[in-house]
């Protein structure tokens, strides 16, 4: 349990003169749900972008499973085992829900263009495996009935679920969820929380950005707090809740852990 899946080492990210992240250190341990919280503009999504290779950090290192991934291409990082969802849903809207997930599952296929044209045995086997896996994941996320619908036509909540399914299809060692419960009602949030726990129990490691305190406190193993690009706290939910800096900087008042 103590193995570190991901380590951010002194990550600084500057855009022009603006410092979005300042010397952030963060460790994600294998098999945990780590929640990343902080006010808007604190740099949470920027951390995701640094991890997934969208941004190259100004300084510092991102170590994934013991090796640095800074400077690697985005698709390489995904192949190594980091997958994410997006704060503003970014599905392939003109593709069906099933195709969206199969696209994620394709990461593990070795068939190239030529193999696909000629329908080699490997190609057929991989196509079948990807399809089965995608159906399984749709089922897991409870949206199998949507399989044939276009991504853009799915109801809002199912779009969020589909994004998670698509990310899971890449078989990530680390799953990054960017506000997966945004726009959900309380009942849906609870259900989503259970799903995320199930994902963890299936052996995945989850790094989660979320605003909803009750959801975070309910499912997280640990919480890290970001404020103005700086990490101000990091620990178990209880530790963080009682951290005076957090209360002052982020919550402004004692946290409501209900």
């Amino acid at each position, binding site marked *: 349990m103590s193995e570190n899946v991901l380590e951010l080492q002194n990550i600084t990210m500057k855009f022009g003169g603006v410092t979005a992240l300042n010397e952030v250190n963060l460790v994600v341990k294998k098999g945990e749900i780590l929640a990343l919280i902080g006010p808007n503009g604190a740099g949470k999504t920027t951390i995701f972008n640094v991890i997934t290779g969208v941004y190259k950090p100004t300084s510092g290192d991102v170590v994934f499973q013991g090796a640095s991934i800074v400077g690697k291409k985005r698709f390489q990082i995904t192949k190594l085992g980091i997958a994410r969802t997006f704060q503003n849903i970014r599905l392939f809207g003109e593709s069906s829900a099933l195709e969206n997930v199969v696209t994620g599952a394709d990461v593990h296929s070795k068939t190239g263009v030529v193999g*696909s044209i000629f329908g080699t045995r490997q190609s057929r086997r991989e196509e079948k495996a990807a399809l089965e896996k995608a159906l399984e994941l749709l089922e897991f996320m409870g949206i199998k009935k949507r399989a044939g619908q*276009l991504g853009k036509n799915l109801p809002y909540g199912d779009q969020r679920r589909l994004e998670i399914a698509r990310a899971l299809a890449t078989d990530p060692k680390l799953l990054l969820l960017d506000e997966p419960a945004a726009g959900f009602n309380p009942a849906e949030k609870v259900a989503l929380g259970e799903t995320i726990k199930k994902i963890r129990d299936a052996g995945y490691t989850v790094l989660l950005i979320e605003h909803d305190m009750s959801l975070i406190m309910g499912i997280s193993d640990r919480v890290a707090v970001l404020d103005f690009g700086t990490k101000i706290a990091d620990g178990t939910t209880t530790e963080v809740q009682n951290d005076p800096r957090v209360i002052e900087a982020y919550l402004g008042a004692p946290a409501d852990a209900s």
Partner: protein
Amino acid sequence: MADMKSRLNLRDRGAEYWERSPKWRRVALSIFFIALCYAIPFLNNPLINTPGSDFRSVLFYPVGMYVMMAIGLNIVVGKSGLLDLGYVAFFAIGAYTMAILGTKTSLNFWEILPIGVALAMLSGVLLGTPTLRLRGDYLAIVTLGFGEIVRIVAVNTDAIGGARGIAGIPTPPNFFKAKFTILDPKPYYWLLLTFTLLIIWMVRRMAARRPGRAWDAIRQDDDVAQLMGINTRRYKVWAFVLGAAVAGVGGVVYASQILSIVPDQFNLNVSILILACVVFGGIGNLWGVILGAVLLAFTPERIRFLSQPRILVFGMALVLMMNLRPDGILPKKKREHFDPDWHTVEESGEGEIK
């Protein structure tokens, strides 16, 4: 109203009919249509005849050639969303390979064909690798420039005939009973049709598999495609190279029929016309693209009696069409609810917040 529309939507109904057909019926229909395509040169219907030009020649060029090229360009523009305005370059490279090797060496058509295709693909790699990271409009101008460059180089290089081009290109050797001569365009049409069917078969396989999904993803959201583990650069180059290969085939066949080529045949207008076929028919949808190419290649020939203003009429038709049906005549189907079970799933509305 929506219901009326869906009733009238022949495309979706056709697609639905196809998807629900048992295998034997699909095979039978396919054989019927393929046979029909091979038989077209024997049809003598005044509706489809082309007064003013030989119908059988028209079937080969422009109709057959445009269909093939449009299918090739559709991989690039329709599938991957890369705007290529210099597609004619690869056609020219295929044609010039046939012309040069055909006149200067003793290689025959069948030996030159793979060389021509390989050279077209190679130039696709050379052009695509550095430029495909450019955004859409920049890619458009760079490809447009490339198309012009190939033509200008041909015009100014005396070793390959300069502006006068190359004459005396050999015809393909006889193939069983089919004799390839300038007098009879039918065998060329059948040759082209055979290649086109092969290409359609390949394209359909790719589209339904991993490369098709990768291209769909890239077209819709390049950033997310990368984050889903797709090597977008590689797939874009592949799209370019495959498109180039198709144009290369077209060029080799074209040169072997036309017997002499000049650089000015390979001008920007060809690229634009083929792009127009793709968009006019219904970008991204193979059958739409084919229909578009047939219409755009055939119509100017059919109205050749208008002689002078036919291109003008063509231009205006393009504008009118795009204003009336911006997605093309036969747009990509919005494939939904084909599985009858999905009809019964009620819209729960669950999760529909904000």
